[in-house]
């Protein structure tokens, strides 16, 4: 395990948002958006993050990039360095290494800026290329993403949804990042455009050896693009492993229900659907014990009180559920080395 080249190591990451209320606007409670997420991401691979809306997928992505204020607890190591311990100057340099593609291409582009400026602003700011090569470089980046040079002077409203998403990708790519968080990049697009964007992302990954954290609620897209998949429920990962393992042999009852809910485009396909009752509970007051026990079909007495521990059932396939108590091995710490780095940096 030590031999693997991890670009990102996340350990027990927590992000709580305070709820203010009552007299003097005191903090009365916390929305536990991300509540203990642990995973490793190997260089040059794609990790898919799936879950229902409100389960903390997007917040996880943003917290890793240090885009949503301070974290509450845990550690995020990017290339072996704690992201949250960096000075603002270091952080500025790091921004070129990690980028994000946002969900909605209609609201994430500044409407008063021409495309060339949207893509090039950060390039100039970070001095990625010398001045005389600037124009050439922008053209090249745009060509890589399937945009024409004459698009440079146009404004975002002149483009269709698919093209706007290409602009967002070009903007992220212009800084030569190593790691990109793709936050539902294809959810707002039509099926045929979706395929174009997914193919583009895959091609770019091959060309530039990029690492993606691919956040989506569309399981078929995640299966297509990811090497590993994490399934999130109410702020924590319930199952994590290789894509093939997860899709062929889902272990957690939530993963099973999620997969059985996907409509199959074949009218003769048999449906053994596990319909989940009710909706996702409020992350401000998550249920006790296993968070999923309120909706789980295989709920036991134990689930209501005891929090399950992560177990490794197959090599590289982790699940957090009481059903698998006697199987596999308990994983206390899938990235113990993270602690060492954290201790080191605090001693400094």
């Amino acid at each position, binding site marked *: 395990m030590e031999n693997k080249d991890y670009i990102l190591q996340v350990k027990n990451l927590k992000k709580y948002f305070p709820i203010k209320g009552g007299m003097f606007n005191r903090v009365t409670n916390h929305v536990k958006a991300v509540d203990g997420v642990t995973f490793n991401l190997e260089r040059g691979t794609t990790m898919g993050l799936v879950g229902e809306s409100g389960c903390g997928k997007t917040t996880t992505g943003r917290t890793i990039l240090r885009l949503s204020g301070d974290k509450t607890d845990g550690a995020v190591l990017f290339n072996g360095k704690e992201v949250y311990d960096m000075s603002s100057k270091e952080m500025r340099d790091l921004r070129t290494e990690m980028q994000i593609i946002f969900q909605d291409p209609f609201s994430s582009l500044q409407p008063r800026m021409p495309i060339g400026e949207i893509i090039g602003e950060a390039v100039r700011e970070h001095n990625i290329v010398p001045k005389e090569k600037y124009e050439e470089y922008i053209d090249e980046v745009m060509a890589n993403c399937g945009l024409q040079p004459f698009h440079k002077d146009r404004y975002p409203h002149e483009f269709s949804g698919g093209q706007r998403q290409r602009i967002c990708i070009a903007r992220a790519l212009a800084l030569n990042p190593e790691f990109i968080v793709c936050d539902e990049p294809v959810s707002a697009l039509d099926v045929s455009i979706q395929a174009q964007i997914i193919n583009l992302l895959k091609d770019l990954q091959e060309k530039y050896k990029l690492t993606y954290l691919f956040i989506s609620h569309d399981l078929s897209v995640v299966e297509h693009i990811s090497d590993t998949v994490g399934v999130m429920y109410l702020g924590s990962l319930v199952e994590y492993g290789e894509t093939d393992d997860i899709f062929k042999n889902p272990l957690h009852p939530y993963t099973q229900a999620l997969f059985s*809910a996907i409509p199959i485009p074949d009218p003769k396909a048999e449906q053994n659907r596990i319909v989940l009752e009710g909706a996702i509970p409020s992350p401000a007051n998550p249920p006790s014990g296993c968070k999923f026990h309120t909706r789980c079909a295989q709920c036991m007495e134990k689930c209501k009180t005891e929090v399950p521990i992560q177990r490794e059932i197959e090599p590289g396939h982790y699940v957090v559920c009481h059903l698998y108590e006697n199987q596999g091995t308990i994983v206390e710490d899938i990235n113990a080395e993270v602690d060492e780095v954290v201790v080191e940096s605090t001693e400094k």
Partner: protein
Amino acid sequence: MAKKKGEGYLSAKESRRIAKENRKITDKLEKQHKRKNVPEEEYRTKMHDFNNSLEIDNLHTYFFSDVGVVKAVDGVSFNVPLGKTVGVVGESGCGKSVTSLSIMQLLQRPQGQIVEGEIRLNLGKKAYDIPKVPIEAMQKLRGNHISMIFQEPMTSLNPVFRIGEQIEEVIALHDGEGKTEADMKARTLELLEMVGIANSEGVYSMFPHELSGGMRQRVMIAIALACNPKVIIADEPTTALDVTIQAQILDLLRSLKDRINSSIVLITHDLGVIAEMADFVVVMYAGRVVEKGTAEEIFENPAHPYTIGLMASKPVVGKKVDKLYSIPGKVPNPINMPNYCYFKDRCEMAIEPCSGEYPCFVKLSDTHEVSCYRHYKDNGGEE
């Protein structure tokens, strides 16, 4: 930066001329539409087949905009048999929603107008031609005979009224004769329970913001079902919802359809949802129907290159492919549609006759029709 006179550029003078011409046309249509005391004979019609609850025949819905006429729906015909579900698929902008709004007469007037075509609605003993029905009579049809479930449950409920009031309003307007307030409340609670809301008393006095997306969509369905309509139009009913909630809502729609025995027109861009729900499928592209048939025919033996491309471009769980197929190019500009097959420029299977007139429908079986030259008899097609 000076504006370039590129493609799609219109001078102010030109735009004014178009607007003036459009106004002439729309004024005439509006005048026709706003007449009072229209005799019933004028909009009564006969169904071609009495087993259909809705027949759409050569429907043309245009939007008269200041940059030109947008032919949003350009000759759409399909039938909705009694008690069956018809799925309408297509990309955004292909005219799916405009078709449904035309059926409900809910188009944005005066720009949006049904220019040509018939929509025959079966009312048991008689039938009405919806484009000719005057406003007052239409208000009686909506809700009672035909109703609609909208796409976004977040924005289509009124945020300042309680759920109970919003459902009761429908009952009072359409079916309220001789009913006391207690009757209406009982009916509302019954409806809420029917759509699977366990805490019906509680939800009755809640505001929309207190409910989750799935619950709101259930309330929308309850409103649509309040007066037992014979035709329900569901415009992307699950697009805004999560997969697990989507599964709940689809289950609900299926069980309700059996219980109240009505027809559903299901509009969606998700082929998976269509496969699961629909008996018949209509595939639309750029305002026209390109293929229609039973669900099995369409999914097992898709004939139009667009349908084939659409199916290939969606990743399917359990089927690994290296690279997804993507349809090249994009939808043509709706103002200047070409005079040949609209899909030709994106089609990889185009043959010589494709540059000719827009292809007619070819029957592949009794129910399966496709509008493509590849299936013409003299071009080596099957029929």
